[in-house]
């Protein structure tokens, strides 16, 4: 896992040299044409209408600049796409939820552009919201993490194992509960929906469909409010998400083959926080860089983030072993 993500920049797609021949030929012809026809006339056609007639004249340097500029632009664009594709191939990562982030930003930008002419300062509002989001994420990243972790060391977590085993032996019902509910989730899922709903109300009179989209996005954004809960009982491990308590994962303890603690990088390995997937595993976390990695008997892998990783790992492995034995 430690090596994953390194060397991404070196992974570029290689083209055979002859794929560049048409571009070189076009460039050569262009240079010869320019050399043969110089000096330029003062006025050349720069735009043609649908009938093929010239409807605009301009300086020849404009045409020259456009050709060079657009070529450079397309070369940069294609190498950017190549790079994106190479990263995709290397990392094998796709984040469903990151699309949601993009939609939100898109809607905010769209609102600020579309309603910019009205009296209300939409673009400033968009700026303020955007900076609030960025600020919240930065705060969450730089917040000292040890305040969550100093409460239990590994040996103390180990002490939980006999407790769990005893309960399994005596066959008494028990529940172990762990949660992550960071501040930025509360901030994001209250601030952004309020702003989006306000803009929905305002734009209802001019663009009803846009405000409908805004309302839907606002509702989607409320969902993570309430954080992530992990519930371990003798039979199941359940992960619930959000204020409505959607069951996002339920694993029978009998299906679990291996449990281990796992260190990861939220941005490098999964591209953000929340419910994330890469080709190796599905991850559920809202904070931190450590979690419990569970492998099922079918070979599927899940990562559950926790503020008390050792404790959760000990409990899950005790339950797994215990539910087989008793």
């Amino acid at each position, binding site marked *: 896992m430690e090596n994953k993500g390194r060397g991404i920049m070196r992974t570029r797609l290689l083209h055979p040299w002859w794929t560049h021949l048409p571009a070189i030929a076009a460039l050569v012809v262009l240079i010869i044409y320019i050399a043969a026809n110089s000096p330029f006339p003062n006025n050349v056609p720069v735009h043609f209408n649908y009938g093929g007639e010239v409807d605009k004249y301009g300086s020849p340097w404009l045409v020259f600049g456009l050709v060079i500029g657009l070529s450079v632009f397309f070369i940069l664009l294609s190498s950017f796409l190549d790079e994106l594709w190479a990263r995709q191939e290397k990392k094998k990562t796709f984040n469903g939820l990151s699309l949601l982030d993009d939609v939100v930003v898109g809607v905010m930008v769209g609102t600020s552009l579309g309603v910019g002419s009205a009296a209300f300062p939409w673009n400033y509002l968009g700026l303020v919201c955007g900076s609030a989001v960025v600020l919240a994420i930065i705060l969450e990243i730089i917040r000292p993490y040890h305040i969550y972790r100093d409460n239990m060391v590994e040996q103390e977590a180990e002490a939980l194992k006999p407790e769990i085993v005893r309960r399994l032996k005596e066959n008494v019902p028990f*529940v172990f*509960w762990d949660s992550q509910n960071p501040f930025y989730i509360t901030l994001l899922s209250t601030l952004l929906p309020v702003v989006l709903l306000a803009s929905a109300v305002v734009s209802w009179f001019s663009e009803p469909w846009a405000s409908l989209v805004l309302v839907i996005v606002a509702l989607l954004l409320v969902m993570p409010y309430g954080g992530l809960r992990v519930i371990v009982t003798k039979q199941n491990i359940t992960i619930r998400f959000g204020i409505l308590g959607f069951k996002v994962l339920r694993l029978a303890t009998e299906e679990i083959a291996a449990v281990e603690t796992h260190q990861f990088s939220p941005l490098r390995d999964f591209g953000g926080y929340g419910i994330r997937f890469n080709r190796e595993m599905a991850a559920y976390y809202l904070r931190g860089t450590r979690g419990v990695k569970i492998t099922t008997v079918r070979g599927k892998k899940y990562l559950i983030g926790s503020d008390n990783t050792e404790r959760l790992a000990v409990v899950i492995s005790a339950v797994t072993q215990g539910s087989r034995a008793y």
Partner: protein
Amino acid sequence: MLLTVNENDSRPIYLQIISQIREQVSNGMLQPGDELPSVRETADSLGINMHTVRSAYLKLSEQGIITLRLGRRAKIARRHLPVRNADLAADIELRLKELFADATLAGISKDDLRKLVNQKLAQLKRE
């Protein structure tokens, strides 16, 4: 947070829940600010009635161990330690005396008792 319901225990279920949460706060497994599961979630996963869990939470809130706020999940209170007063200390001394009497009558030797007390002291939250 680890909760158990033991049918063999003579205490009612809500008292079992209260004592477990108090114990976990005292040994540091639950920290101030930690969230507790909702009443419904706890009741579902333990297979007990919602009102049992609710009364346990209400009692804990009265004792100042947790804070309950409408529409929020229960949280371990920031200051769960009451002001140290003479009555409380006297009460604990009395209970200890009773416990020691029980232990002596049950035939537990002084050394074993000392070992037990030391073990429980070690499990308390590090200051």
